[in-house]
């Protein structure tokens, strides 16, 4: 399930770090950056090995082409460097990354991986940001509401609706959505976008028209992903909130006459979200990881359809290059998360 990103939280929390003061941030970061190197080497090596474990390579499909001779395939294999042993391929690739910041060439696009990947990642980023805003915008209030008004009729009604939405795979919800948009278009001739990211005349639009046009295309897929997975987060928040809400120190706080608002938001909520803060790091790569199959069904030019193609055609460096990006982001995310944890939880120290 896509949990969306957490950029919003990450930026919000910078001032928290500033108020920390328990443990030295800079040496901590340096220490973690040193640990960074073996992690990256190991991770990128792993993905290389896993790719090469499976039979076939980028040129396998060409073998079924009645017009391409085996000699041409052999020549192409040499051109792409696929005739070399996996270890050599890996070292050459790593060498080029370290020496020239060159991630290699995508076989399918015959272009540097970086140029192929980045525009797609940016497209996905907009969608994921939209999703994240909707996701947290819905999940946090719903979770808190569920905890505060536990077992009320509204709490139960919300649960039932969310379980229902959770039960359908998001790609299927997306198909249903497209179907209903189509019916609406037939009936009322509303110009609701059916997919994609921009309208036909996008190139001729002014800047603000472009922003509006993209937003118009984003809203439905984003809403589907957000509403589909909102149950997950809101349930966990509700559970965590209840846990803290019933704890002694909240009782004490209430007994001391702290307002209900402060008891809920300042004391309970802040403590309830600790496990999520720990997982922020895991969500940073999700930010570039795209919105999943909804991108496919909505024909959105994001990273997911491209990666599926790359996996399918064994576009080696595109897969490995993208994986390297997510690894780096994951590690940075985890470092941020550890610092954040210190900021929100007075009991934790940087060690």
């Amino acid at each position, binding site marked *: 399930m896509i949990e969306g990103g957490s950029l919003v939280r990450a930026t919000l929390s910078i001032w928290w770090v500033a108020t920390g003061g328990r443990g030295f941030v800079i040496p901590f970061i340096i220490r973690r950056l040193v640990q960074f190197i073996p992690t990256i080497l190991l*991770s990128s090596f792993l993905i290389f090995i896993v790719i090469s474990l*499976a039979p076939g390579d980028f040129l396998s499909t060409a073998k079924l082409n009645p017009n391409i001779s085996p000699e041409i395939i052999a020549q192409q294999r040499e051109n792409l460097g696929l005739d070399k042993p996996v270890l050599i391929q890996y070292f050459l690739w790593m060498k080029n990354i370290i020496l020239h910041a060159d991630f290699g060439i995508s076989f399918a696009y015959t272009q540097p991986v970086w140029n192929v990947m980045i525009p797609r990642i940016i497209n996905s980023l907009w969608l994921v940001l939209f999703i994240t805003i909707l996701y947290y915008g819905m999940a946090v209030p719903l979770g808190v509401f569920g905890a505060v008004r536990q077992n*009320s009729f509204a709490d139960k009604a919300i649960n039932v609706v969310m379980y229902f939405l959770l039960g359908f795979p998001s790609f299927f919800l997306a198909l249903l959505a497209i179907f209903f948009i189509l019916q609406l278009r037939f009936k009322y001739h509303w110009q609701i976008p059916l997919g994609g990211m921009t309208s036909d005349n996008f190139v001729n639009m002014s800047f603000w028209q472009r922003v509006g046009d993209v937003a118009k295309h984003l809203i439905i897929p984003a809403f589907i992903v957000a509403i589909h997975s909102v149950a997950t987060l809101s349930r966990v928040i509700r559970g965590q909130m209840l846990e803290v809400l019933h704890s002694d120190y909240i009782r004490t706080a209430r007994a001391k006459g702290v307002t209900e608002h402060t008891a809920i938001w300042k004391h309970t909520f802040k403590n309830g979200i600790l496990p999520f803060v*720990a997982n922020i790091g*895991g969500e940073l790569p999700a930010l570039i*990881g795209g919105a999943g199959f909804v991108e496919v069904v909505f024909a959105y030019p994001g990273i997911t359809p491209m990666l599926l193609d790359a996996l399918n055609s064994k576009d080696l460096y595109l897969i490995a290059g993208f994986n390297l990006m997510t690894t780096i982001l*994951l590690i940075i995310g985890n470092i941020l998360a550890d610092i954040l944890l210190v900021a929100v939880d007075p009991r934790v120290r940087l060690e």
Partner: protein
Amino acid sequence: MTTVSDPKKVKVLKPDRSQTQIGIALQQLRKNPLARFGGFGLILLYIMAIFAPFIAPDGLSNYSSSNITKFHPITPIHIHDPATGSLVRPFVYKYSQQLNMTTFVNEFQMTKEVCPIYYFVRGDKYRILGIPGNIHLFGTNNPECKVYLFGAETLGRDLFTRIMYASQISLTIGLGAVLVTTFLGLLLGGMAAYFGGWIDIFIMRLVEVIGSIPGLFLIVLLRAALPENINPILGLYVVIFLLALIDWGGTARATRAQLMSVRELDFASAAKSLGASDSRILWRHLLPTMSSYIIVGLSLSIPGMILFESSLSFIGIGAVEPYVSWGSLLAQAQEGGFASITQRPWVLIPGLFIVFTVMCFQLLGDGLRDAFDPRKRH
């Protein structure tokens, strides 16, 4: 103090001192109607899965290549004689089929032929828990005129039968994997938090290495790397299990974070000063503070796996022929596009089974969470 607005739950329970923790929890659970509903629902589902071949009137992959039943509609079951109106043995009508070449719709016409439904009929051979059998709960004894309780799918196979068989895969696919993930996550996260130092660094960097490879990547690649003659469903289980072995990172980080905040608390220090062993402190004192997180997490991740399997089916590496899961049935419906919605809505029924299962897991999970929460008892 009460935050409970349900009047049924405000009943005061006086815990018996001799009761065990689990005993109390079960007692609590029994008092929660929604949780009870979820629990019974799950029991029913799992019984259905075990006895699927018996409940199903047909074999999983049975269809005829001469008598075409592609997307056969749902056959209503009649109990009144059409001529006299009197009550008779339940029956269905036989249908005839033709592809309309102007609308391109496969049209089915009800004929006058009546096919009575019998109970405990002999039919397709199967095994339940290793015991062979060929008795089916109901059937018509007529392969040309079957009961299509939920209609038929693209090859003309009975959808009800397939949903029954699919439950076996959908209801088990994530169970083991989720338990393994949770156990490993708790153990390694707990160790990292409790011991700190090099162990912490090692475990957390390990989490990063394996967490850096997106799960979907890994599944696609690993599936392709498995021996080619492996049974596809075994392959699926193996891959999901492998994923579980490396998917504990999130749980581990969450556990570590939670535990780091409680390990300095009084009760842990007290236990330590009383000479409790490390593992005892970890399992008996520290991890129970995670119970809410674990229960809610489990009740979400088991249905999450059902959906994850459907995602795999969407890209063609989930439950593949001759096996089916609810997810793969739904992925097939997706493949039919808008026609699945307008011409044969019954192919969406597998989705309702997923929804029902997810709901049962949630309700039971909520109930359990409340039941294990000592502060919720009044």
